């Protein structure tokens, strides 16, 4: 888990993870940002931030907006250098227990970063 999370350092929040999981199941989605927020279940501003993060990381493509179109085509890009690790992580996150484990591991990573370098690294999570 720790190794996987290290490969997917771009995933910083639960919203990033859930948005990626949604796009993993819907790799080519023609939606408005508002609809995306409803499907994923986060406020629009969180989704907008997550979208920008993932696009910058090269995990997501977003077609330029046409005038008069509210919807945009979102395309998951897992063929890049980060793709392999993210894919495995998303496989795990597609199940409830897996998602929970990843979120707990992410919490541990955050708290680890906040503590001194002598502090223990990621919290180990029992994986069924």
């Amino acid at each position: 888990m720790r190794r996987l999370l290290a490969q997917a350092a771009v995933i910083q929040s639960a919203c990033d993870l859930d948005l990626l999981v949604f796009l993993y199941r819907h790799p080519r989605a023609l939606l408005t940002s508002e609809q995306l927020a409803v499907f994923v279940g986060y406020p629009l501003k969180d989704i907008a931030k997550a979208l920008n993060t993932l696009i910058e990381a090269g995990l997501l493509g977003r077609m330029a907006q046409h005038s008069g179109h509210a919807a945009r085509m979102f395309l998951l890009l897992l063929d890049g250098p980060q793709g392999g690790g993210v894919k495995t992580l998303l496989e795990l996150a597609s199940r409830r227990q897996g998602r929970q484990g990843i979120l707990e591991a992410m919490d541990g990573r955050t708290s680890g970063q906040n503590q001194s370098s002598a502090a223990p690294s990621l919290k180990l999570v029992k994986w069924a």
Partner: protein
Amino acid sequence: MPESDLVQTGIKGFDEILSGGIPRGNVILVEGAIGCGKTTMGVEFIYRGASQFGEPGIIVLFEVSPDKIVRDARGFGWDLRELERTERLRIVFTTREVLRQELQQADSVLLEEAAKIGARRIFVDGIARLMPSNDAIETRSGFHVFTEGLQRENLTAFLAIEASSYTMGQNGSLPEESIADTVIRLRMEENQRAVTRSLEIVKSRGQSYQMGTHTFRIIEGQGLQVYRRVQAPRSSQRDRAAAYDPTTRISTGIPGLDELTNGGYFLGSTTVVAGISGVGKSVMGLQYIAEGARRGERSLMLSLDEQEEQIIRNAASIGIDLCREIDRGMIRIEYEPPQEIEVDVHFHHIERLVQEFKPRRVLIDSLSTYGSSLGAEGRIFRDFFHGLVALMKEHQIAAVYNHENPEMLGMTSMMGGFALSSLVDNIFLMNWIELNDTFRLGLTIAKMRANAISRTTHEVEIQNGRGMQVLPRELRVPKERHPFSAYAGLVSRAPERRRLGDRTETKDTWRDPSRS
């Protein structure tokens, strides 16, 4: 219509019903209740187009997530991910609202996606409630705008719509039906406690097609298979089948019977052997196919009553080595349990067997089991039998059908409740006759088209290891046992010994051995 103007669906059996395919550019509406198979059909339409006909496609989904579609398709052996990877397929997830807006825009993002891969086909899964209105006229005009958008890109559109008795209008149709060029209705039909799937082409502009309700199945590892309804007209060849070879005869394989039938059955003829269970119909049939094998003619046995192993064992008891003939490719036995026969599927199977195996003789055991399975009273059984007779005649096959007549002693009708005798060329009655304290077996040829036959009842016997033979009318018999010619009224329930003077009136005079 030139073939290139037709879009082949690639769905097994479906293009035959559609006279080769659907006119390119048609908007195809596929309607049916939940679980009918609309999505599977739509995905197969796109998959076959992209993988077999070089026509990339787009799948548009609203409620089902693409990963489930990809997973389910894998179960049929369709690798959608590979098609996506090679730019032959796009699976787009969107909402109805977005799609409606998209197709009203000249620079639609969706159609741009279609253009990028040169898509020729599009499948939209679940267009019900695409228009926000409940008003039929508004729905119709909204749908019209939607289809115009699809046609701008010259896409052949396959649109699945959920329809049940609740969503249909008063006239049993959807508002979208009048705009669509092709309407295909899928159904799940309850039959006793079984459920069968069927489809009907309600309309299809610009082409001819086979009307009526056809059966289809969703087959694991394969996809859809459509089975043309048994009543639908086949090739024109079959209609001309009456002009079969009028002279060639096929030996019956029963010693003594060829003499009674002027040499056997005609090629392409239909023979029914009727009699109660245990009277020897199957024995007669086994000898018929074994004789074929002996003469180098392929024989096919279709059994609903007994499985292959049991048939092989029974044949061995009368000295016939069926295994050897099966191994030699001269005999083929096909068993199908009769409980849940789907008539279109079963008929398709027989058609394929006949076309591939090319038998000269066919034995069907038994007609009465078809009757009890399909319902002897209704049209389906009669239509099935009619189709079977036509198929056999087209392929110049001499077919023998065993038929269980329920009467143990005597016969008051040839085929009981099965009103089929007009379709049959030959009818042989096998009948138990009780004389003194013994059941003896009689055979009467009740009907034989184009044959001058004697309708005299002949005694037949079946011996272990030797099978059936027709006994001569003149027999050396012990005093206490008289040959059949000594009796009158053998097919009635109460045969009587002839008076001495009567014996001279028949051709087959009985000679009392005690007097010779």
